[in-house]
């Protein structure tokens, strides 16, 4: 029984990690095309990726957008969750559904709609419009995780703080925020990943010369088929791993593993 359990788990892990392994194989294969098995080990595609002005600009923009999305979507999503869970607002279910609607709609439609809106308003395609698009997609993830934490926290603690004379700001900072921190961190993590990997929304909203990494990779793939894409993917995977390890070291994953 135990052996079967281990076999099933092993198969699931292999299923999840095989694509990552294949990307790593391609990234270190010296051949100028994607081939299996690899004929050797080389870091030439990493060098090409890291010295490419286009890829580095796209990588930098994706990082900046990800960070800005965390800040904006994190704030908006947390505020909305608090208002919905603690604000005693009428139509809470409807409000929740409205806030979550961007992840229910196909993201390509959201991107297309935002593009049309920007065109009709004469705003053009700027990095601000792109950031707005990323935030629209990321807010529901923050909202969802913060709502989950709020559902399990006792509002009496905040009421007690207020009753003992704390202002709303102090009660939020000293009581509410520590309580919802795991949800905010988890939501921020999701927001970053959703922004960094965002393709359908970016497809319509990126402005010429300001492509994000997924768009730059897609454009490259249409015309060139060497290992640079695999190297770019490997760097993205490493970034995600570093992000998770960084959070584990500084805050600890145990806190939001309870979610």
């Amino acid at each position, binding site marked *: 029984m135990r052996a079967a359990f281990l076999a099933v788990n092993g198969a699931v892990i292999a299923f999840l990690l095989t694509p990552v392994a294949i990307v790593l194989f391609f990234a270190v294969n010296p051949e*100028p095309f994607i081939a299996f098995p690899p004929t050797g080990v080389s870091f030439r595609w990493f060098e090409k990726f890291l010295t490419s002005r286009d890829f580095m600009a796209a990588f930098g923009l994706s990082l900046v957008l990800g960070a800005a999305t965390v800040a904006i979507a994190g704030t908006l999503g947390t505020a909305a969750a608090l208002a919905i869970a603690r604000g005693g607002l009428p139509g809470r279910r409807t409000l929740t559904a409205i806030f979550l609607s961007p992840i229910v709609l196909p993201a390509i439609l959201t991107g*297309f709609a935002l593009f049309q809106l920007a*065109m009709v308003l004469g705003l053009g395609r700027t990095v601000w419009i792109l950031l707005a698009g990323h935030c629209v997609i990321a807010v529901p993830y923050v909202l969802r995780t913060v709502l989950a934490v709020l559902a399990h926290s006792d509002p009496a603690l905040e009421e007690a703080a207020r009753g003992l004379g704390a202002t709303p700001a102090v009660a939020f900072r000293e009581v509410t925020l520590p309580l919802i921190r795991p949800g905010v961190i988890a939501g921020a993590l999701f927001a970053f990943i959703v922004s960094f990997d965002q393709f359908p929304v970016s497809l*319509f909203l990126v402005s010429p010369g300001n492509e994000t990494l997924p768009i730059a990779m897609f*454009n490259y793939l*249409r*015309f*060139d088929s060497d290992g640079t894409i695999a190297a770019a993917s490997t760097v993205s995977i490493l970034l995600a791993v570093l992000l998770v390890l960084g959070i584990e070291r500084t805050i600890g994953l145990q806190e939001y593993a309870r979610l």
Partner: protein
Amino acid sequence: MPTRRTLLAGTAGTLAFPAIVGAQAANTLRITGWGGRWGELSRQELVPAFEREFRCRVEVDTAFPFVPKLLASPRGRPVYDVLHTNSNEQWSVFDRGLVQRRPNLSLIPNAQAIYPYAMSDQVVGIVMFTSAIGIAYRRDRVNPPPVSWGDLWDARFAGQRGSYLIPANSLGQAMFMMAGRVFGSGYRDLDAAFAAMERLRPIRLFDFTGGMENALLAGELSIGVLHDTATYRHQERVPLEFCAPREGVIALEQALSVTEGTQMGELAHAWINYMLSERVQRLMAEELWFSPVRRDMVLAERFRGKLLTTPEQVATLIQMPWQWYNSVKDRVDERVNRIFRG
């Protein structure tokens, strides 16, 4: 807390944003373009020289898809001034009234020097470069080599041949029409083409030419539909050869059109004229293996006999009836999806 003054300033800034964007766009030419090596050459060589000469800014959008973006932009304020696509998409946007059928030739002096096919009835706008779609094959695996489009159907290539997802790729669509001619009464013989697609299985289908190139380079396939530009680019690295079938090669036109409603008409025409100039035509031919459309081009020795520059070579180019194809595209897509799925 924000003060009343900061709120007012913020509101004013927000309201003025479209005007600021508009002012920035006043001397900006917005065009579409390819990525990859084309994009690099464009950014390093073509665009800076044009910007210097015309004291303007050129904004090149290399992020697909271009047509939906153009469709979604207001008619009087198109998102692009010049649209660069292949002919199938040019016809698609022309039929929706989004681009001009032909630019004003009096503003394009270089149009005097180009082959007639670059402005034929089968083309919207003006063709600036052409690739020849034919059959690419591995010299080390295919003997005797193919000579006809019909050879793609040879039983010895079952499972070793490749083409494209017809609903998504214009090379696949061109090959589909060619099948109508080879096995039926002409390019518009749908029944013959459908029957030919049935017989083409087993086959590997790709979204982009990049996928086909990779499969041929890696030796996963022996033969496939590809253009000469991609084939010649890789010839020094692998034993890859290009076959111009005896029925003729299919023109993969890189066409430029001026959008309806553009406020940058003069610059748009200047850009098209620039792309037809001798310097740009030579640069793109010798760096990227695109056949120029100018009649007066004499390229370096290594390009002769490969790129289509002489009247005899140009006469082998077949221009497909894309406007007709677009009108039956939904029907074709539905049927070929069933054929290749089943």
